[in-house]
């Protein structure tokens, strides 16, 4: 029930098909075919991850470009023992996106202090959001899970920060986020 094994990703459409091990080796060798394969198979998924956070297609494209440069330069530091290549890349993209949102929101809140007092304390959530990717599932969660998980995953706040903003004990925030994550995974596995 946890995992839909029969899920068929839209990848491996290219002529070549590499295992993750082969792909990492090619990337470390700075191989162009390896990079083309990586981009073709992962750029769309990573673009969605970034878009979920920055809510702006042009800005998301810039962040994606920067993220791929980081991936290209840091791939020698990727440790396959600690996790899959996609997990590693997704973290790089998410961190880059949150950094951009943070600096953008910082500028915006300086320009318009009133916006600071919105529900989550950020501007991004006030904008029209695209209901794709993980946001699609997060939005299906109950509010007590949805709000801290949005603040944590999409806005990059730490548990103590969320606890302070929501006026909840830190332990409660952690419990609700983890419950939300388990729920989220279940939703993701069932939707396909």
């Amino acid at each position: 029930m946890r995992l839909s094994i029969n899920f068929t990703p839209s990848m491996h459409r290219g002529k070549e098909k590499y295992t993750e091990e082969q792909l990492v080796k090619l990337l470390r060798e700075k191989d162009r075919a390896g990079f083309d394969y990586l981009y073709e198979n992962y750029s769309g998924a990573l673009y969605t991850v970034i878009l979920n956070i920055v809510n702006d297609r042009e800005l998301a494209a810039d962040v994606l470009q920067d993220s791929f440069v980081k991936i290209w330069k840091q791939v020698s530091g990727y440790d396959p023992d600690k996790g899959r290549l996609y997990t590693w890349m997704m973290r790089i993209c998410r961190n880059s996106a949150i950094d951009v949102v943070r600096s953008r929101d910082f500028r915006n809140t300086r320009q318009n202090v009133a916006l600071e007092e919105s529900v989550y304390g950020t501007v991004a959530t006030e904008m029209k959001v695209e209901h794709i990717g993980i946001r699609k599932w997060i939005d299906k969660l109950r509010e007590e899970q949805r709000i801290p998980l949005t603040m944590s995953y999409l806005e990059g706040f730490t548990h103590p920060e969320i606890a302070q903003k929501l006026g909840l004990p830190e332990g409660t925030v952690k419990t609700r986020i983890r419950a939300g994550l388990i729920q989220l995974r279940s939703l993701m596995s069932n939707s396909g």
Partner: protein
Amino acid sequence: VDSKEYINSGAIEAYVMGLATPEESAELEMLCRQYPEIRRALRECEESLENAALAQASPPPARVKNALDSALTFKKEPAAQAPVYPIPQQRGFPWRSVAAAAIVMLIASGILNYYFYNRYRKADEAYASLLAQTESLQASNKAIQARLDDMESGLTLMMSSNVQKVEMPGVGSFAQYHASVYWNHHSKEVFLSPGTLPPAPDGKQYQLWAIVDGKPVDAGMLDQCHLFCRMKPFDHASAFAITLEPAGGKTEPTMDQLYVMGQTRS
């Protein structure tokens, strides 16, 4: 740690989503090494998230790929992918022959350089010695010229009609010697020609005397005199005589050393 409880705690999901604190991440990584089931659960969670994300892929603008293609540094394409043209063996530029010829020419040039340098050095030395010879010739030429000038002026004086030649034959045991005085009445100049007088011994000098009013008067010492020597001028004199005296001369002639003597015409 109860691995089943841990797997169901949401800690793995938090880790995969990047929401775990560094301490939580370190704990999970450690547990993965200890509990294969936790490791398996982590992999399953990762695959689940990855597959969901791939299903939600939205294509980014084409400019991203274009920018990356020019921004990233790729290793060079394998040579096999580039068309390879065989290097024509026959028609190519004859580098080997040209190189060999160049080396031969270089060596020949080196030998010639050495040869010409030696030639140049010898010529330079010869030129320097010629230059020195020319200088010494010029110097002796000048000296000769000066002596010639002296003799010419002396001869001009003696040829003058105002000059009286006073022959001084040898006296007594010195009869084999003779000398002459050339006396210009007009200018009063007196020149002596040593004639056949032998060279004066060391520490001695010939002294010319003019006999004026019956008394000998010093007319000068003979010094390195070849043909003519200018002596002291005299207004009038009845005779001239030469004695051998100690170097520097005396006020009175030493009569037993009277070599030659001659009367003037008055």
